[in-house]
């Protein structure tokens, strides 16, 4: 796996010499140096655990008082008025926007990303593979604010006619109902997020496809499979867990993406009627928090935003745990 996301599947996998990495050996001599160094390493490791625990605890502790004072239902209300005598706030709208935009991003980026990865490993002429892979890697490193800037200035005008076309032709369908909002619609944000996570999906999938055992592929070809049949029967099954975890990591990225979305969103006016349309505006968790950073004046207001952040944390936690489980299962198969 790669450091795009910092997550790796390589915990217990055999090293290049085919052996499992050194497990608990008993080389420690019990000398001062050993105890100090081993102690420092252990402390660092435990520190990471403490850090993650603290994140959860601090977010919960500071969110709870605000949630207690909340006069609206946190999960089903669309109001966001955390200040004042009678704070009322709910996350329904952010949840909808965040999840829908990320779903669009996944629907677009996973098939394309996997196809590009297959292209780079199976179809591309040899001279093209390295430069193209480097280009993808470079794009995975481009900061998200650049995607936001590009989306805002360069891409939005191009997307506008596409949106009006779809609204014209498919407007009868609730998901595509015209809302009068152009620019930062959920759909547009989803597309920009898709472009942003595409290099991540591609880079991770490419690495997995590259590792398909030659024997599998040659076996398929020797049985008379066409190249596509070879890919379908040997490369894809081998790479499936890797693709799933890559997608989950990309999904985590899309859910939590802040600045690109903040550049693009159209916030909805208070009391806006509910719409199922993908062409509606609306803030995501991350953009709502980022846009209101200057409002963190009193603890109750801050608490409301922290509560929203907590939901986002839980959301990404679940997604990452699923990725983790998939990776573990793959390990169980390969060992």
């Amino acid at each position, binding site marked *: 796996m790669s450091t795009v996301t910092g997550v790796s599947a*390589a915990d217990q996998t055999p090293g290049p010499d085919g052996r499992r990495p050194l497990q608990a050996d008993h080389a420690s001599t019990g000398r001062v140096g050993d105890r100090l160094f081993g102690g420092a*390493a252990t402390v660092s*490791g435990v520190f990471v655990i403490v*850090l993650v625990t603290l994140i959860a605890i601090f977010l919960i502790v500071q969110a709870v008082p605000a949630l207690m004072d909340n006069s609206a239902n946190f999960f089903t209300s669309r109001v966001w008025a955390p200040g004042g005598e009678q704070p009322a706030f709910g996350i329904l709208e952010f949840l909808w926007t965040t999840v829908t935009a990320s779903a669009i991003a996944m629907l677009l980026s996973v098939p394309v990303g996997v196809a590009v990865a297959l292209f780079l490993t199976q179809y591309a002429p040899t001279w093209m593979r390295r430069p193209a*892979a480097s280009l993808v890697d470079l794009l995975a490193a481009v900061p998200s604010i650049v995607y936001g800037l*590009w989306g805002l200035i360069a891409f939005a005008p191009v997307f506008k006619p596409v949106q009006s076309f779809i609204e014209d032709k498919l407007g009868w369908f609730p998901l595509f109902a015209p809302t009068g909002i152009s620019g930062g619609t959920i759909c547009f944000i989803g597309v920009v997020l898709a472009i942003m996570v595409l290099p991540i999906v591609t880079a991770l999938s490419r690495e997995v496809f590259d590792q398909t055992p030659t024997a599998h592929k040659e076996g398929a070809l020797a049985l008379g499979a066409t*190249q596509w049949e070879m890919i379908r029967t040997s490369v894809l099954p081998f790479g499936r867990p890797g693709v799933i975890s890559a997608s989950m990591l990309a999904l985590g990225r899309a859910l939590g993406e802040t600045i690109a979305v903040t550049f693009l969103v159209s916030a909805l006016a208070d009391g806006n009627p509910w719409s199922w349309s993908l062409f509606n505006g609306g803030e995501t968790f991350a953009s709502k928090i980022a846009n209101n950073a200057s409002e963190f004046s009193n603890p109750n207001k801050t608490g409301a935003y922290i509560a929203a*952040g907590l939901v986002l944390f839980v959301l990404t936690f679940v997604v990452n745990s699923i990725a983790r489980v998939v990776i573990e299962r793959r390990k169980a198969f390969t060992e």
Partner: protein
Amino acid sequence: MSTATDRRLPDDRVPDDQVASGDTSTPPGGRSGRDALSEMSNPHRARAVKDVVARVVMWAAFFLAVVPLVWILGTVIGKGFHMLTTSTWWTGNQRNVNSDDFGGGARHAIEGTLQMVGITALIAVPIGILTAVYLVEYGRGHLARVISFTVDILSGVPSIVAALFIYAIWVTAFGFSRSGFAAALALVLLMIPVIVRSTEEMLKLVPNELREASYALGVPKWATVVKIVLRTAFSGIVTGVLLGIARVMGETAPLLILAPYTKNFQRDLFNGNFPTLPMMINQDRGDFALATAAERMWGAALTLILLVLLLNVIGRVIAHFGAVKK
């Protein structure tokens, strides 16, 4: 940024897929998709058609993906480059430069960004490397599993949540003000998992024979780890660190929450607003319709990309020349 390919051992064997299918025009059996089309009877033709369709789809997907990506790079370079050639860009700051004024420099933001990621690296790198050492050299049983799991969790924490956490602990609980240092702390959270994972992978590449030889000579474990294992993996670890720095350099969410922007030079990480490149881009967000503001944003974006790219290139060069030899 995918680095595993670069950190892999020097690859002197032919990639698998070239053996199997590298030359797509004559796969084993001598039938290319097109020949198959003309020569085969009906049930076979369906398979051949599928094969050709799949090939076309893959090429199409590649070009579909390349278009926006090249478009982005092209726009940033095309619109940002001439800002970088103005006389004040590398020397001046944005003091008294309004959205509708031309000119001004980015030096304050470049220095600020470098200073901030420097502090971040100073804190995150030792923790990250030691944690990786624990996981590879010492870890066993439940503790190692739990640490490994929490590193995964940490790597999935969205930057905005990391920022909220630092806000909750640093500003709300401790009562400090927002500052460059607070933002650096949030970046530390984002950088630790990157360092741990990349270092871990490098340490695993160090052959066990080296450790065993060292033990056999009576070298204590800590000295073996420091002088043999870490030294062997050194270049790979440096690469991981550079890529980790590149990764947090462009993070904006923590800066939005924790380090308000200033147009002036500011070297004090602990008091007052702090200039950084992402925030410099963000600053003109509301005025992007003004040519002057847009120019500044593109210029800052290009500068940021160049910094990230520079770190990546240095990292790759080090990885290329210093890879662990078998």
